[in-house]
């Protein structure tokens, strides 16, 4: 006998689908099938069942081999390196729940850590642009129910957010969008012919790194002013056509991804994209939304927002919260050798940071709290495997449009495994003991 759990939330990407169905064994210990999820989401659930999964913390030995240690020893090591350090880096926080993020911030406060999340190499530039110019945005249901002009700029949801187009942006029939995708015009801006670009009504195959120019050209076109014959590789007629398409919509939404946030121009590209959205609101209704990657990177920005006032790169080492991207961002700190211990939870910098940063992590006292074996766990001194959030423990996560959804537990974690929150709560208690608080 099996049982089916409905309304399960997928802890993979910022789309945070909440309509999955998961079949588990009668005793709730084995996860058997996943329905409604994309291939990536299904895999996230299924590989929690891997036979060779690590279930106990381990510490690297002098000779490079691993030795299993107890959770108590891992807690002691973690508390000690954090309290010994003058300026530890506590990085990640994007693949965990808000409960763990909250406990983590309290630890950070007591040990004077720099708190940074994966936005630092992803949508951090978007957050900076929002601080410059604001952001007219909406929830994904507004897109589903109203939007008839959809722009994907520098992002490829067909691969990175596989159910985005079917759940929210292109295909669904909403309240005012009864015709589904036939009532919508889809524009994709990408230098590559991606699978998303292939199904677009218009693909603007922009020259790489010329996003700022094209965004500015759209603003010129909205106002009916003169344009050069070609901007960013796109003929002016095409730009004017797209500008008119957008202006004539009832509700325009621009989704953007790392193609604009981390290419030449960075936050300035996003400034321009938001300015395009502001301009469109002179003629019709328009909104813009970053395609956030990890399922709860948005949540860590929210938790730090209400606790410290900043969404990423929060330096607590002086006893109060400071924020100065470029100075207090993880890679800048690591490469300048400004941090003296590294704690990673819910992210994989080993795979995504530059090699020069990863080498620094390798040289420092370091802990990775992470259910999987990853490039990060390979360079850290201690690896603490934990239960999968959203599979083996529930908790709050924020979707890319900042909507909070409570993820569900569907199966038990292997016997004796801790969750992120439990581990952090124990570390916090030990930190307080050591500090005499």
């Amino acid at each position, binding site marked *: 006998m099996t049982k089916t759990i409905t309304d399960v939330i997928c802890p993979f990407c910022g789309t945070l689908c909440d309509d999955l169905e998961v079949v588990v064994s009668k005793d709730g210990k084995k996860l058997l099938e996943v329905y409604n999820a994309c291939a990536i989401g299904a895999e996230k659930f299924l590989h929690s069942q891997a036979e060779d999964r690590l279930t106990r913390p381990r510490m690297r030995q002098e000779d490079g081999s691993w030795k299993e240690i107890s959770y108590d020893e891992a807690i002691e090591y973690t508390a000690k390196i954090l309290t010994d350090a003058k300026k530890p880096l506590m990085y990640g926080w994007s693949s965990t729940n808000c409960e763990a993020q909250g406990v983590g911030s309290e630890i950070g406060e007591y040990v004077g850590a720099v708190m940074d999340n994966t936005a630092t190499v992803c949508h951090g530039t978007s957050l900076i642009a929002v601080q410059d110019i604001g952001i007219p945005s909406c929830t994904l249901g507004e897109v589903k129910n109203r939007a008839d002009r959809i722009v994907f700029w520098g992002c490829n949801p067909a691969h990175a957010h596989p159910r985005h187009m079917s759940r929210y942006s292109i295909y669904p029939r909403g309240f005012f969008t009864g015709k589904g995708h036939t009532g919508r015009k889809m524009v994709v801006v990408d230098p590559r012919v991606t699978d998303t670009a292939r199904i677009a009504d218009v693909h603007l195959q922009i020259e790489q790194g010329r996003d700022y120019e094209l965004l500015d050209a759209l603003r010129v076109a909205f106002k009916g002013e003169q344009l050069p014959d070609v901007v960013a590789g796109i003929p002016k007629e095409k730009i004017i056509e797209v500008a008119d398409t957008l202006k004539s919509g009832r509700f325009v939404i621009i989704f953007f991804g790392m193609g604009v946030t981390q290419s030449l121009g960075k936050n300035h590209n996003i400034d321009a994209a938001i300015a395009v959205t502001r301009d469109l609101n002179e003629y019709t209704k328009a909104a813009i939304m970053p395609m956030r990657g990890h399922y709860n990177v948005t949540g860590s920005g929210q938790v730090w927002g209400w606790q410290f006032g900043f969404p990423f790169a929060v330096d607590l080492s002086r006893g*109060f919260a400071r*924020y100065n991207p470029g100075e207090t961002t993880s890679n800048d700190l690591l490469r300048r050798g400004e941090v003296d211990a590294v704690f990673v939870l819910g992210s994989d910098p080993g795979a995504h940071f530059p090699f020069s940063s990863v080498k620094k992590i390798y040289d420092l006292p370091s802990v990775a709290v992470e259910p999987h074996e990853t490039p990060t766990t390979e360079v850290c001194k201690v690896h603490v495997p934990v239960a999968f959030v959203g599979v083996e423990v529930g908790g709050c996560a924020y979707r890319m449009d900042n909507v909070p959804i409570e993820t569900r537990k569907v199966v038990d974690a292997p016997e004796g495994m801790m969750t992120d929150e439990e581990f952090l709560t124990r570390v916090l208690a030990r930190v307080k003991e050591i500090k005499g608080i």
Partner: protein
Amino acid sequence: MTEYLIKNGFVFDPVLGIRGDVADVAMKDGKIVETNAVKNPKVIDATGRTVMAGGVDIHAHVAGPKVNIGRNFRPEDKLFNTRPGRGVERMQGGFSVPTTIRTGYNYARMGYTTVMEAAMPPLYARHTHEEMRDTPIIDQGAFPVFGNNWFVLEYLKNNEIENAAAYIAWLLRATKGYAIKVVNPGGTEAWGWGLNCENVHDPVPYFDITPAQIVKGLIEANEYLGLPHSMHIHANNLGNPGNYTTTLDTFKISEGIKPKGRFGRDQVMHHTHVQFHSYGGDSWGNMESRADSIMDYVNSHDNITIDMGQVTLDETTTMTADGPFEHHLTELNHLKWANSDVELETAAGVVPYLYSPNIKVCAIQWCIGLELALLAKDPMRVFITTDHPNAGPFIRYPRVIKWLMCQEAREQQLDAFKHKDKVIDATHIAGIDRELDLYEIAQMTRAGSAKALGLSDIYGGLAPGLMADVAVFDFNPNEPYVPDDIENAFSNAEHLFKAGVHVINNHEIASNGNKRTLWVDAKVNENPQVMRDVKEKFLRYYTVTLNNYEVSGHHYVPNPYVIEVDATQ
């Protein structure tokens, strides 16, 4: 639990009718008790001090998605005002949109112990509750917004009050909400298309209902349920010259409706931040105060309460579910603009704003807010707010109290205005010599607001049986003082007790308290039609499933105070 006795203070308590007499206040097990009921109390000597119940804020934006947009998109708001953690205090930052930690501490420092979050988008209820959970000391509740909700628009279009009420009861439970909030009724739905409803008869696009119908229907649904608080409204046409007529039209919708229920309030409509709704003229050039017309109406209709929305002349962060207004504001001041439309429910906008004493309009706004309070005949129905952070940050309440209590302080500010003469011509303030006393201040900040919220049986006074929320201020009303003494004393309580816990001792935060979240559980008869409508809307139009919508208790509302209402009869 420790017993306390606050001895020999000058007590101001409208609930007991004490007007500054020297009296003792005793506390035991979290409640106020008779002074002879405590056996071995810890004694606080309040000789020469002012003693009041803990303050009750009826309207502030202190937790939730738009507040956090304000924090995250304004790093400049933290510049030069951060404070390291110390003792039990955690680190703090922010001025107009402070961190949750600072929000709790700053309210406590002003002697406030209960604060209502004035606008909670239902879909974001979890976020609002997470922030309230992380706000120390103060008890809080949040008002979900209903005035642009598709269910409400559809039911009220057909005048289905019972169905609207059943839906409201369901949503209050699902979101752990406290009251019915209405923001720019119909106008925010119109903003889904970039439009607005500018007066109470301006129809809502597609839904074919007018703001007046929405307001009337929600008042009736509120009284059908007999909720603790009345319908709480931010009317159409906020912030525009000449809008006082819209405000009066909105007031008039409540005429003839009487409050129902067991909570002891007298009003059926609370109109919030009325300062923003009391403008005459037809342009920014000739904009003038119509606080007199507004207060004539309020004074003569006892089923209405209002709060001020006093402009404090600071740089601040405006935020409201009135989406079209924030767009209008960014067009005016060209500062950064955030907007967040919420499916089927509401919207929000956030724009920084600088209320400059050198700008005539800002100075007129400052006068209008004070006029509302100074022209009030019944201070139990007019409350002090700054619509935090819209007209100014809540930490300015003591300054507002100073202005209300001292004509001298008002004149100093008037003299400092660049366009003093034009401002005086456009307002009534120069002709008002009324100075409120501490008893009236206690009505406007404690007893009155607690009563309007339907909470007079737990907050707002010092009668035995009420919650032991007591503030002691270093202020002697019988000695000569300068105006700034008032502001200083009320900014920095010497002692504060929250539910009998000594949270401020000798001006220092001594405890993070044991905060509670208030929400209303209204029971209604089973209503299959509404539940069918709910299921259908979630299936077809929401992007979360029905089973993932309700806020569960354990994490979001760990320490609830549930007020039960029975509307099954």
